[in-house]
């Protein structure tokens, strides 16, 4: 099977959907001509293949980029636009939250907004908190949006293709660090349904619910814990909204123990939602306190030792699991 980084997988998804459907176009800052040279990046080569009519470099104007998507979607196109880094979501957030997510409702179901907003997220490249700030909890708390945060190149490809074909606005968040970690991606065409979590490792002692880059940390910790006889089940959400409660509940009912792992800062992070769902619907099965392993309640610092301190790692996850097993 082909080995691709997540950026390349995204690139394949974009290419295939643009070939399939002439209504699909992409827009954003540097999606065509770029300051980067790497073939590992999501939009590499698309300008050459599809031309400037469908690959639109925009000015540095996040509200206009998002507005472009909302309007073009309502008019029947299939926009896939990029907000370069998650913190710049703020600048597009009125268009996404008050418009993409609400205008269908406000029209009484008459207008539709089939658009995808792609954003890069994740710490680890030393750029500091104005470039690294995971805000998936914001979009997950906004009725009218779907939220996808893939953990592997193969998932990214299948989910992005499904997102582009979806009739509703989808926020698609890519952790930049995953661009450079190749993984297997099927050659034949496939879609992955939105709203389905995947058990990436079966286990019986404790459930770790996670998503995006943190899946790697979970798998690493699970391997370590296995050596000590602790059998971890790893649930990769893949889609945050709509949330696959079934899979979460099935796993936690089985193990009776829950740890949620995410990179975003702790207070108000999406881990709270998982804890609440489990306590509403699986209380009787739970055998131990819950744990959240997350970034601390600080902005992401730039200096390497500080940034490493920020990002949750296997050591922290192992310690948290041991506290409750």
């Amino acid at each position: 099977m082909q080995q691709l980084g997540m950026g390349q997988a995204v690139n394949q998804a974009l290419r295939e959907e643009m070939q399939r459907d002439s209504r699909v176009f992409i827009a954003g800052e540097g999606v065509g001509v770029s300051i980067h040279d790497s073939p590992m990046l999501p939009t590499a080569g698309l300008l050459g293949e599809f031309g400037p009519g469908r690959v639109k470099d925009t000015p540095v104007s996040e509200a206009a980029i998002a507005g472009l998507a909302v309007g073009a979607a309502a008019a029947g196109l299939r926009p896939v636009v990029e907000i370069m880094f998650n913190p710049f979501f703020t600048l597009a957030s009125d268009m996404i939250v008050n418009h993409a997510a609400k205008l269908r409702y406000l029209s009484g179901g008459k207008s539709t907004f089939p658009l995808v907003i792609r954003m890069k997220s994740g710490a680890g490249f030393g750029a500091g908190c104005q470039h690294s700030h995971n805000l998936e909890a914001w979009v997950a708390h906004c009725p009218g949006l779907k939220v996808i945060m893939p953990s592997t190149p193969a998932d990214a490809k299948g989910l992005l293709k499904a997102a582009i074909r979806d009739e509703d606005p989808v926020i698609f968040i890519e952790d930049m660090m995953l661009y450079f970690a190749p993984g297997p991606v099927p050659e034949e065409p496939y879609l992955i349904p939105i709203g389905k979590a995947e058990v990436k490792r079966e286990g019986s002692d404790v459930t770790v619910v996670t998503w995006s880059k943190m899946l790697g940390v979970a798998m690493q910790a699970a391997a370590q814990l296995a050596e000590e006889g602790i059998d971890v089940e790893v649930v990769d959400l893949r889609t945050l909204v709509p949330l696959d409660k079934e899979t979460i509940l099935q796993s936690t009912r089985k193990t009776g123990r829950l740890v949620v792992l995410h990179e975003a800062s702790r207070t108000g992070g999406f881990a709270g939602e998982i804890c609440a769902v489990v306590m509403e619907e699986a209380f009787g099965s739970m055998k131990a306190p819950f744990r959240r392993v997350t970034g601390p309640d600080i902005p992401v610092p730039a200096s390497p030792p500080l940034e490493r301190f920020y990002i949750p790692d296997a050591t922290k996850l192992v310690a948290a699991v041991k506290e409750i097993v």
Partner: protein
Amino acid sequence: MQVSKDKQWEMLRTLLLARSFEDALVELCKVQGKIPGMMILCTGQEAVGSGVCAALSPEDVILTNHRSHSHLLAKGADPRTLMAEIYGKATGCNRGKSGTLHLAVPEVNAPCTTTVVGGGLPLAVGFAFAQMYRQERTVTVCFFGDGAADEGSFHEALNLASLWKLPVIFVCENNLYAGAQRYEEHTRVQNVADRAGAYAMPGEIVDGNDALAVYEATRRARERALGGLGPTLIECKTYRCRGHGESDPQHYQPREEIQMWTEKCPLPRLHGEMLAQGLITPQELEALQAEVDRLVQDAVRFAEESPYPEPHEALEDVLVAS
């Protein structure tokens, strides 16, 4: 160029209809508990909606804002479903989800309405982009206020529309107020149209109480847009004769100012000229007035008699598929 008799009739009809519609609302708002939400009227500004929409084709798209009645009626929206929506009834054009503030009528290509000030401007870029992408012979019009011209969204949208030469017409309805702020209290630029130069875009100032002038300016802008020459910013100088909303006591608007502008009312302005030129007779005018009044009465009756939505219908219309 002489505007055809038919067009003048069309504009006069939508002017009268919008005014009659809003006059009814003024009275309805006095009945405690009848009309939910904030009632925002465009009394005195109707020539903008009438003049602009008369220059458009049915396929052209309009995006309006919180002060939408004349725009939507001029584009052909059904007064009955508009009124029902304003009442919050199940038969409303948006099933009660919108209420009076975000009236959207996709049937007449007014596909979504935002009351976030300035919010329509980036959306217009998207609609116009789609029109260009599909090589349609259509344009997008975005109505917005003088206050909206201070929002960042104005700047980003006009820059991008100009850069890509999109077929969009930005229609600023400068009614001299943004909320309680007079125009010169919220910006120092003399005319909103002066900002067009910042985007290398033509800017035009028209008398916003003169439906014919608005019509002509829109027609020219539409031709530019269809000719691939890009967007135009049209500033219509007009006046908000009532308060920002119906609960606004208008303390900050000088009485004489309101008086002066009331005398410039766009309705007699147009039918006065039409009468003088023999394009309409007094009898015909009376009949037209009676016709629109009947439409409005019918709309009110429809709204009154319609049921409210069932509470659980609130859960519908969020997503196409979930």
